[in-house]
């Protein structure tokens, strides 16, 4: 038993207080320690020294060329992450190779632009490989299906190319993010240029692939061009992957239209445009490509492309205006021997922005990463300053309006387009809620 001494504490008091403090400490959590509770593939996917990205880029089907380009963009971004390359770290802010020091591994599955294949492949990546992030699409149908899967499985999905309004509209998801421009922003950016350059009293025929992307681009183009005075005279809906467009072209020529708005994408855009040229339809109607596909100019050639207006997400001549763009184009060209198209660019951008969000959040846990995205900080990238809109997970970014160059004006073999307008994102984004987005819960 303790004797004397000023203010001596009895052993019992000491033990009791100590026990109480211990219990309190277990219950209280200091503010700086994050919620580490498991969700989705976290933390299972981050054990060890690497994390896995599940990619779904088409290598077959009408969008296979765009899918191939996109896959190269992902591969370059992942290589840059793992090598701590200066270009990507200027966006991500990472100090160590990888993301949060973990190496990035990946695998690609061919979705063939089929949503069922995509869902199966991504599900496998999630359950077997514990993918911490899934990404990639050229078809909006795939992007929308994959987003829903990501939201169910609590794994972040980043859309690749997705032009439908619905991806950040009625089908938006808490776990989905889209960085490219889309039907609404493309039409909003393009319509003023068309009205100015082609006049306000035009009669338009639309060639529309019959799925979400085609139908929403049609709706947005009609909205913005009819507001300028254009009249829609016919809408020809065709199945994705059609090979012969002669019946649609004949109908369009019979309608008396003087403008042909071709919403087809990928190989469909190439076939329909070439066939339109064969029919002489392009002598009667001016061609507009509201959502120009990667490689389109390359595949139809400058004779058809001359004077054609359209929009694109990225074009390599941006390297003259933006250092990061220049670095990206140079590195890509060095790795793959051609100038990157916008499929590759969006893949690179999405990967870089994801890595940035994880680095800033300090964790791979999706809830924290999503909240980091939703902070909407201004980020300097290959296309200038961009930021995420929290209400629909759409990146607010510029839309490039392009015009096809005449063959004699091309300064090099890839110099197909003049960028006639760079429209800032804020000017063309749909008002919040207009496209019907209601994001779900975080958990």
């Amino acid at each position, binding site marked *: 038993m303790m004797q004397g001494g000023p203010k001596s504490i009895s052993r019992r008091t000491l033990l009791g207080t100590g026990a109480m403090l211990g219990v309190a400490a277990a219950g209280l959590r200091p503010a700086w320690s994050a919620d580490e509770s498991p969700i989705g593939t976290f933390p299972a996917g981050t054990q060890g020294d690497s994390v896995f990205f599940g990619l779904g880029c088409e*290598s*077959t*089907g*009408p969008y*296979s*060329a765009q*899918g*191939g380009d996109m896959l190269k963009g992902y591969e370059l971004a992942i290589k840059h992450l793992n090598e701590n390359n200066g270009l990507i770290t200027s966006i991500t802010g990472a100090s160590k190779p990888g993301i949060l020091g973990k190496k990035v591994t990946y695998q690609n599955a061919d979705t063939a632009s089929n949503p069922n294949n995509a869902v199966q492949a991504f599900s496998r990546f999630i359950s077997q490989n514990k993918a911490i992030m899934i990404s990639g699409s050229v078809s909006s149908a795939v992007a929308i299906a994959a987003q829903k899967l990501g939201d169910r499985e609590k794994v972040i999905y980043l859309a690749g190319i997705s032009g439908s309004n619905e991806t950040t509209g009625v089908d938006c998801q808490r776990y989905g993010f889209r960085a490219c421009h889309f039907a609404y922003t493309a039409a909003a950016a393009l319509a003023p240029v068309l009205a100015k350059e082609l006049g306000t009293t035009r009669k338009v025929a639309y060639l529309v692939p*019959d799925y979400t992307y085609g139908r929403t681009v049609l709706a947005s183009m009609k909205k913005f061009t009819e507001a300028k005075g254009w009249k829609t005279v016919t809408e*020809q*809906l*065709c*199945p994705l*992957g*059609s*090979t*012969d467009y*002669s*019946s*649609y072209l*004949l*109908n369009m*020529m*019979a309608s008396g239209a003087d403008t042909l708005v071709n919403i087809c994408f990928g*190989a469909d855009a*190439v*076939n329909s445009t*070439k*066939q339109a040229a*064969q*029919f*002489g339809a392009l002598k009667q109607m001016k061609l507009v490509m509201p959502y120009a596909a990667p*490689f389109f100019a*390359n*595949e139809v*050639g400058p004779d058809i492309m001359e004077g054609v207006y359209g929009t694109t997400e990225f074009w390599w001549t941006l390297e003259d205006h933006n250092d990061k763009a220049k670095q990206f184009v140079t590195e890509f060209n060095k790795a793959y021997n051609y100038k990157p198209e916008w499929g590759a660019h969006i893949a690179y951008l999405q990967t870089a922005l994801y890595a940035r969000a994880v680095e800033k959040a300090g964790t791979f846990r999706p809830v924290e990463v999503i909240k980091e995205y939703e902070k909407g900080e201004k980020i300097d990238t290959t296309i200038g300053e961009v930021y995420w809109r929290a209400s629909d997970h759409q990146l607010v970014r510029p839309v490039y309006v392009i015009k096809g160059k005449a063959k004699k004006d091309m300064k090099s073999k890839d110099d197909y387009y003049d960028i006639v307008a760079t429209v800032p994102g804020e000017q063309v984004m749909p008002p919040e809620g207009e496209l019907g987005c209601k994001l779900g819960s975080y958990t």
Partner: protein
Amino acid sequence: MTTVFGIPLGLIQAQAFNGLQQGMLLALISAGLTIIYGALGVLNLAHGALYVVGAYAGYLTYAQTGSFLLAIPAAAAASLLAGFVMERLVVRFYYDRPDEDQILVTFGLGIILVEAVRAIFGGQSQNTPTPDWGQGASSLGFLMFPFPWYKIETIAISAALLLAFYLVLYKTKLGLVVRAGIEDAGMVNLLGINVYRIFLIVFGLGAMAAGLAGIINSPITAPTPDVGGRYLVLSFVVIVIGGVGSFPGAVLGGIVAGEIMTLTSLFNPSYSEVMLFAVMALILLLRPQGFFGQAGRA
């Protein structure tokens, strides 16, 4: 202007002519498929891939020589060779196997061919420009719109190839044996004719038909590794409509299919293919052997 159901008569004529062009191409592809199925009993799911082989062989020749006229026999040779190799190395071991095995093996061969093309050429479409003699368009004095010359010429080329096919099948001894083989391969064998040699030739001819269609159609529909898939499906529909194993059935079925698709597009283009499948379903219900097929044929 006279209208029918509110559609200008001139447009109907134009679409009907267009349907003839598409139909002749389908007839050519389907003729190849039908003789393979008729004689060998093998459902050749690699038929679309053989179209692709012809298209790419023709494209390569065109790119090297600048002559479309050379590209056509090159495509024929390449697809004939592909057909021979496929038959000798794989398909002939499956003649006595159940149908499912035959379907799977030809399907697999088709995938191999397509992926080989993709590995060599990549997924982007190849530009096969319209030959000089096909440039421009003409209304031929009666059409509402100028119709591309090249498409008019493909009607002639397809007709000539189908005529050649017909002459081989109906006017030569080889053709006689092939047709006998289509009717009853077992009997032909019993009569002492080497029916397996005939099968090799039939497979090659069928493959060649697909390959020729591939190169002829290339200026219209740019070759990609996957372009054959749609023609495979359509040619199956055509042989169901026309009658399996029947050459005239394939021709008539092809033209009918082309007309159904283009005339439906006058009303609602999204239903063009739906209508074709609906007609196929109707034929299966009412006359399962098709126009010229034989009832009770497997």
